[in-house]
């Protein structure tokens, strides 16, 4: 029986693959995506996120106290490479793989597999080969350069690390944007003297990472629970909906605060916490979609063939109901970024790494009001959230048949 079911499943997948090859770029999701991204709003959003992703990946190249390349006694070396961490290397390799995969036309799960393998491989290799020095002395380069030890130096565009407080120059501290004569701080410095722009560049990693991972976790939980609710309906649906209601009844921020109070504050804990407090919305969407789909012939056919549950749910139903979830995910990333920023702003976020919310918090904590400390990180949060909201809006318009009908 089981064998037979698998054979049938293999056959259906084969048929499906042939179909999908014929309709290569004409799947519903692709259609929706194409339609959404013809709008300027969505394009702007996509552009900003891509820019942010590039900034996040190349952060050590963009803002670093370690020079990119120096020539010392006719020996060329790169202090920046020496100080790069395993995480930096993994990010770089994953980014490059993604860019390459964008141009290769293979099935989505193969792409995901390649990406995963590349990430793990780089992590393992980097773990064996890379060992950044524990102690970082930022002023050694400035001292050496002042002493004329270098023949030539190539600095990063922003030649300050996020935690470089520039102690060697003595008079550092709070400075307005471009307010100091000897150094260039495009966005000024915070109270300890470190460069605001550099901190923002490195914090973009946290914002992007939290957004994607937390939303991914929330989507996974939401799709599984919502899918089961929608497919089985009846008693499962009722119990599930009560669960959703319970999680929605407690304001998310209070739930987050409760979690933060009782667990430790690391980046990963934060991702998980934001993920498991924001799944009910996705569950609702998936449930609604699946309730609609379960009556349709192809699902009944799949059930009649005796396909296993996971195959019906994820291979047959999910691709047909993914569009509304894409919309929700787009808004969800925005709210996850906001949630992290809020927690950091309230002083309940990451302890030592700068994040945009934590920088806003710094602006509040200082005794005087320094607009650049609030305006730039806050503006970055705003632009990122705005970008995701624009994309969500465009996607929603693209999947809404009502609007299309009325527009014509």
């Amino acid at each position, binding site marked *: 029986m089981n064998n037979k079911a698998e054979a049938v499943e293999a056959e259906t997948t084969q048929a499906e693959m042939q179909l999908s090859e014929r309709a290569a770029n004409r799947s519903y999701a692709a259609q929706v995506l194409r339609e959404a991204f013809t709008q300027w709003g969505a394009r702007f959003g996509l552009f900003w996120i891509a820019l942010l992703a590039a900034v996040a990946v190349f952060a050590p190249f963009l803002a670093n106290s370690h020079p990119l390349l120096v020539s010392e006694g006719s020996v060329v070396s790169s202090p920046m490479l020496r100080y790069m961490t395993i995480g930096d290397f993994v990010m770089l390799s994953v980014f490059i793989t993604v860019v390459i995969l964008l141009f290769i036309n293979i099935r989505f799960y193969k792409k995901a597999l390649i990406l995963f393998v590349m990430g793990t491989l780089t992590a393992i290799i980097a773990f064996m080969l890379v060992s950044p020095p524990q102690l970082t002395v930022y002023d050694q380069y400035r001292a050496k350069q002042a002493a004329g030890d270098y023949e030539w130096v190539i600095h990063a565009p922003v030649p300050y690390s996020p935690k470089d407080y520039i102690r060697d120059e003595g008079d550092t501290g709070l400075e307005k944007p471009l307010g100091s004569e000897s150094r260039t701080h495009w966005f000024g410095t915070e109270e300890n003297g470190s460069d605001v722009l550099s901190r923002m560049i490195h914090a973009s990693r946290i914002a992007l990472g939290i957004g994607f991972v937390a939303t991914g976790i929330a989507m996974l939980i939401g799709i599984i629970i919502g899918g089961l609710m929608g497919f089985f309906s009846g008693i499962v649906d009722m119990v599930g909906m009560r669960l959703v209601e319970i999680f929605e009844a407690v304001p998310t921020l209070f739930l987050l605060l409760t979690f933060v109070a009782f667990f430790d504050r690391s980046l990963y804990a934060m991702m998980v916490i934001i993920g498991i407090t924001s799944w009910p919305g996705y569950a609702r969407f998936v449930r609604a979609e699946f309730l609609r789909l379960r009556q349709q012939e192809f699902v009944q056919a799949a059930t009649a063939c005796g396909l296993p549950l996971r195959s019906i749910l994820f291979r047959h139903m999910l691709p047909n109901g993914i569009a509304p979830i894409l919309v929700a995910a787009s808004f969800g990333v925005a709210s996850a970024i906001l949630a992290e920023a809020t927690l950091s702003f309230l002083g309940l976020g990451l302890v030592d790494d700068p994040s945009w919310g934590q920088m806003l918090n710094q602006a509040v904590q200082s005794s005087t*009001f320094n*607009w650049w400390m609030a305006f730039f990180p806050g503006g970055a949060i705003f632009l990122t959230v705005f970008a995701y909201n624009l994309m969500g809006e465009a996607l929603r318009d693209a999947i809404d048949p009502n609007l299309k009908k009325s527009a014509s």
Partner: protein
Amino acid sequence: MIPTLLGITIVVFAVMASAPGGISSQSLVEGQNLEPQAKKALEDYYNRLYGLDSPAPVQYLRWLNNVSPIGFTFDENREINGFSFFKGSDLGDSFRYGRPVMELIKERVPITLLLNVISIPLIYVIAIAIGVRAATHRGQSFDVGSSVVMLGLWSVPTMLTGVMLIGFFSSDQYWHWFPTSGLSQREALDMAFLPYWSSFVDVLWLFLYSAVGAMLMVGLSRLESLPWRCGAMGALGLVMGILMADALPGESGVVAYLLLGAALALLFTLIAYTDYLALRLVVMGSIGVATGTVLFFMFQSEGFVRGFFLDRSWHLILPVLCLTYGGFAFLTKLTRTAVLENLLADYARTARAKGVSEKDVLWRHVFRNSLLPLITVSATLLPGLLGGSVIVESIFSIDGMGKLAIEAVKARDRELVLSITLISGVLTLVGYLIADLCYALADPRVSYD
């Protein structure tokens, strides 16, 4: 309702119990350097509340029994000695404040509710005013403009607005127009409720000033010719911007004058430019009243006691502003979609066909039906506002429930954290209930019998 409430308590308790080390670990571990008696007291306290030697489900039941207003009563040896309907709920004691949690929450909830009760009507009025207009004038400049602006407003984080507002408008570095923190000045607590003038003539003068301001502006807003309207408003904005730059403490550069003048001129011209008469009337009228009042107080401020009410409103302006804009931005978009959908519906066409005027179609037929999604959303608006008040209260140092929650989390005062989560859940459920009742009011097809 009741199952959801029970569910909330289970979630809250599960979070607490799944923390590394169990319910009381952190408090007990951090109490390591307490004196032996104090530590004993702490242990006894937790034991009495939860029964630390029992398994987690039993601990949950004990906690539930403590929290619920009816339940079993216990004697000193933790044996059940009766069942009472009036035992009252015991939310435990806060260690940080050394007081029962119930008392603390009773103090703080009204403040948070005050903020929300002011915000919600504001949100709805603005959202409906702009959303309906955008829907009826679909595709025109007002619709497009308001859509972009609302999406932008919706994305501005409350923290940014709060920090910028408090930084620019209530610090000595820029304009010190609003108070920095709290909900009332110390001395205002002793004042009478309403403002008080030493002479009646002053009151008349105030009315005169604001009435003249309002009348001038209303007249201007009703002006038909667009160039005149925009020009006058632009000039007014320019003057105000320059005055604002002049009010900056210290030496303000040419850039400040130019920037502020241009910004305010642009804003005012934009207000004058819109072809939405009602919006223009209200906004420009308020500008007129505000200008008149400010002028009055610039010349005559003796013999005036502002009273508790005015002081409270003065403190509330910035927090309420922060709390509302996200909500109305969201609701405006929703209103627009709902009204648009109903305007294109068959029944609206039928109404038009039988000769009902467009105004009646909109307000008697379409609007009533468009209210339904708005009411549905109001249920989720309340949790959002409660969450938003956490940020707003912490920025403006208002002693509401949100600030209490943050203090509790920072001090790891778990009784307080749990009770606050519970109370906010209950408040949200009450919001759901009210939304359901409103639903029945707006839609006669819905009945709950």
